[in-house]
């Protein structure tokens, strides 16, 4: 007999717009202008015990809010929530961690808050460190960790606290592919043990792999709820239909909605000379000229590199992750990515370049394998050749 572990009954969540802005003081109080925004409207759903439930939708559709409400981190404005078992969760990487304390202390706090006694928590520390591959960093303060390390730690903790209900917000999208795979394997282990899981993701590949059922949220309401394959396919179709006048020309290896278009993309060396054949470890400038007919707000520029004949991306860099604000783009302009050391081994590579809507909703322009180049004079095999030296003691 199935029973539900998480139940939401007609849940709505309202944020005041001031809650979305910065901290409030008496001086910037303005009662008249305080607008309300509904993040969720009348959501009713139940997650069955042992089931993996996915929440999909664009940014701002309310899926993260729904997960926070399931976790009890915030409560709904109206409606009811029932959690029938202990929730342990992984919701947004940075916020649950304390930067001044070490990885070990953070892991202890997280384990104890997830319901372990101190002794149990201490006993599991080494497993947590091993899974996160942070054995050498556990006594360093968290502020010295990269985002990837924080994610690994947070993920590892939530896997080691005997979760009954596990909630995961988008974080599977971060981290390197090998670690992601390791997490998937661990999650699949939980699934076979009957742990109830709820995840949000943009990535339909992940959703299809993990979820039994999926709810698709649009503007805070459930658009469709049902079996994963059906909902995910309808979502994917809607996403591609929703893009205005998509050019998708496989011959030119270009697609996008065209608000911004690249006019030229070049690889240059530090003196501005065109590169085709690049000595390993040299400095490379990726220079792209673009044109925007109408003003475009905060587009995201991205560059990725893969080996020709293989899909694995060796580099995937974008202005958003780098924290660069692009402002309003209009007319023609130039964007440049400087790679101080292109530490790839000898081989043939291709570069993709794209410019996206500010919430990654769609590409304005994407050029696939726009530039081919060759790395020479590296005597190693393998994929990357970081600066290195050998020593014999």
């Amino acid at each position, binding site marked *: 007999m199935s029973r539900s572990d998480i139940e939401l009954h007609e849940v709505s969540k309202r944020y005041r717009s001031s809650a979305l802005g910065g901290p409030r003081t008496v001086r910037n109080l303005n009662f008249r202008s305080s607008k309300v925004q509904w993040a969720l409207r009348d959501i009713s759903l139940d997650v069955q015990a042992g089931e993996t439930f996915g929440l999909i939708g664009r940014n701002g559709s309310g899926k993260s809010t729904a997960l926070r409400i399931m976790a009890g981190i915030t409560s709904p404005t109206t409606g009811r929530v029932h959690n029938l078992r202990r929730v342990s969760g992984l919701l947004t990487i940075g916020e649950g961690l304390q930067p*001044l304390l070490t990885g070990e202390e953070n892991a202890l706090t997280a384990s104890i808050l997830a319901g372990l006694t*101190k002794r149990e928590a201490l006993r599991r520390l080494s497993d947590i460190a091993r899974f996160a591959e942070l054995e050498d960093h556990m006594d360093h303060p968290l502020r010295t960790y990269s985002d990837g390390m924080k994610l690994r730690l947070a993920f590892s903790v939530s896997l080691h606290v005997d979760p009954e209900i596990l909630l995961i917000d988008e974080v599977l999208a971060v981290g390197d592919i090998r670690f992601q795979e390791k997490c998937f394997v661990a999650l699949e282990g939980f699934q076979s043990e009957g742990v109830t899981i709820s995840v949000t993701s943009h990535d339909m590949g992940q959703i299809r792999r993990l979820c039994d059922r999926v709810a698709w949220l649009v503007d805070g309401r459930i658009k469709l709820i049902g079996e994963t394959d059906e909902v995910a396919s309808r979502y994917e179709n809607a996403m591609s239909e929703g893009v205005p006048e998509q050019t998708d020309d496989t011959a030119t290896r270009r697609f996008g909605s065209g608000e911004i278009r690249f006019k030229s993309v070049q690889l240059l060396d530090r003196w501005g000379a065109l590169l085709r054949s690049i000595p390993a470890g040299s400095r490379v400038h990726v220079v792209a000229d673009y044109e925007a007919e109408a003003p475009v707000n905060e587009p995201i520029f991205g560059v990725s590199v893969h080996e020709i004949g293989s899909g694995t991306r060796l580099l995937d860099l974008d202005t958003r992750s780098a924290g660069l604000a692009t402002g309003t783009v209009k007319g023609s302009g130039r964007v440049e990515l400087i790679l101080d050391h292109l530490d790839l081994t000898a081989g043939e590579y291709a570069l993709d370049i794209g410019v996206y809507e500010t919430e990654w909703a769609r590409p304005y322009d994407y050029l696939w394998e726009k530039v081919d180049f060759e790395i020479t004079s590296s005597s190693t095999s393998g994929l990357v050749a970081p600066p290195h030296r050998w020593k014999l003691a």
Partner: protein
Amino acid sequence: MNAQSQEGYVRSRRYTFDLVTHLVGREFRIRYRRALFGWLWAVGSPLARLAVLAVVFGQVLPLGIPNYPVFVFTGLIAWSWFSSGVASATTSPIDRKDLLFRPGLPRHAIPVVSVMTDGLDYFAALPILLAFLVFTTGIPLTAVLLPLILAIQILFTVGLGFLLATANVYLRDVKLFVEVALLLGFYLTPVFYRPGLISDERLRTLLSLNPMSQLLDAYRRILIQGTLPDVKSTAALIASGILIFVAGYMVYARKAPVFVDEL
């Protein structure tokens, strides 16, 4: 009670103990992280303040209070706990928002942990006070009432902490207001003087409405004078302490579930 729920009960008590001690220890480590002398500052600071007050009001402007250092120290450490407890509880949901973002944490633990961590400073200074007492007036029998007076003070501190923490999440001016109020409170509470020194009758009555003023009087009676605290005033303190605590708890409990929306 069957065996399993018995075990569950023991486990949950064990767990609550672990949770609270861990959080207090953690709070403590965050505060003294990267400080060379660490906790010594917590003990050193009231001693330094004591020395200054003892010089100023014992020598420069003598107030004529017998055993003045003991008198001041008794009031000073109690006031310090109250004032640092209220201040840190007020900002605790913001300072420790990482805890609010974790499922499973009882929300009301956050200000309580703050106040308890400040209590460590009090208990570090307490042996020094007792040593002072041994070498001056001796420790009277009435000192056994200390836990009662401390408990009343904790009710006030945590209750106010709940109220102010809630207010501060919605209006960040509250923290600034609290800082000023506590600074003035130090002078308006008889920490380094005796209320009897206030010549204006009405002012004296007005200032005696301050619960901290009553509490400091009780501390001095049981620790220095060896007399029982005033029964009527203690009853009023207990009643108003419970009132503040319950009011604070209710306000906090109502708003805490949506704190993260405002952080």
